[in-house]
């Protein structure tokens, strides 16, 4: 008997309408990319939640890990000058 399986895992991203970002909405199992796309349509857009879909093999996703979160994102922590509030603008100056 061959090995029974539900197929690999895919991550699904939906774009609500043109101009908006693709947002992760969940995952599903499918055997190939066509089936993944059709399953994503049936599973995640039954009520017109999307006008475009991406499906990505879950195994292809590279993710940061929570243990390294501190050092990994650290470079951004001491650069307050990247935020507009860092700068002082004399009172009375408008539109800036």
């Amino acid at each position: 008997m061959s090995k029974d399986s539900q197929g690999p895992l895919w991550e699904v991203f939906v774009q609500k309408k043109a101009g908006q970002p693709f947002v992760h909405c969940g995952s599903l199992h499918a055997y190939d990319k066509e089936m993944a796309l059709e399953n994503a349509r049936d599973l995640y857009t039954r009520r017109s939640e999307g006008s475009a879909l991406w499906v990505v093999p879950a195994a292809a996703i590279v993710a940061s890990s929570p243990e390294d979160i501190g050092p990994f994102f650290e470079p951004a922590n001491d650069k307050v000058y990247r935020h507009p509030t860092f700068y002082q603008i004399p009172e009375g100056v408008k539109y800036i």
Partner: protein
Amino acid sequence: MSNAVDVEKNFNSKLEKNDFVEPKDWMPENYRKHLIRQISQHAHSEIIGMLPEGNWISRAPSLRSKMVLLAKVQDEGGHGLYLYTAAETLGISRDELLGALHTGKAKYSSIFNYPTLTWADIGAVGWLVDGAAIMNQVMLQRTSYGPYSRAMIRICKEESFHQRQGYEIMCRLSFGTEAQKEMAQDALNRWWFPTMMMFGPPDKDSPNSEQAIKWRIKRETNDELRQKFVDRTVEQAEFLGLTIPDKNLKWNETKKGYDFSEPNWEEFYNVIKGNGPCNKERLEARNKAHSDGAWVREAAMAYAEKKKENILAA
């Protein structure tokens, strides 16, 4: 951050701050186990829940009600799939989850071991069973585990159609002929107490509950949810002109809620043990669907493999 005390402190502080725990975060082994059990039971309930309703698809009284019921049953399947993938983020495979269901090792909600004898039962299931499920699911939108919470948010958005379609059926029958009204009352009589059991045993007899609340997996206790359900449902039954089959049901001004009878907990444990009217039938139907589909999975896998080979050869 890698020592054991720190990761546990970090986990607890997340719970205190009402933050979410995500799949790759450290979590206590028992938290993981509790979630796998709860989420997979929830998923199995959605899938088994398709069976009692599926029973009426071919006999729905109109094309409209048939389309609606098909859409509802399809939603239940979808809910099962959202929940299975949420459980899988905890490190268990879909095949293991399904295996546990098919061998009877895993449980599902005992309510689905009752039969749907008449069309009014489809109304009562939507109104009462989905109504009770919503009560639980609304709370679970704020559960501490991120993927479970996200699945619940999706499910809640879809679930209110289910309850409304059920209530609509109850309205039609309750305001119809005498025979139809009788049919509606009969369905309420049979579904009321099994629905009350859906919230689980009383708090004093529910050892898992306390821990689940500490972990913020659950946010309200079984008894709190049951009370809320009764308080909301009584008026809906009155509107229909139907009588809830509980002689002790009475408004209690001091607690601003209804007093009511406990369901028969002996029956509840007996159904969980496998002795409900439909346990055997449900499990057989699920196993049959799974084994009948084996060739489809095999063919789809072979087709995917073959296409991969063709790409490599080209």
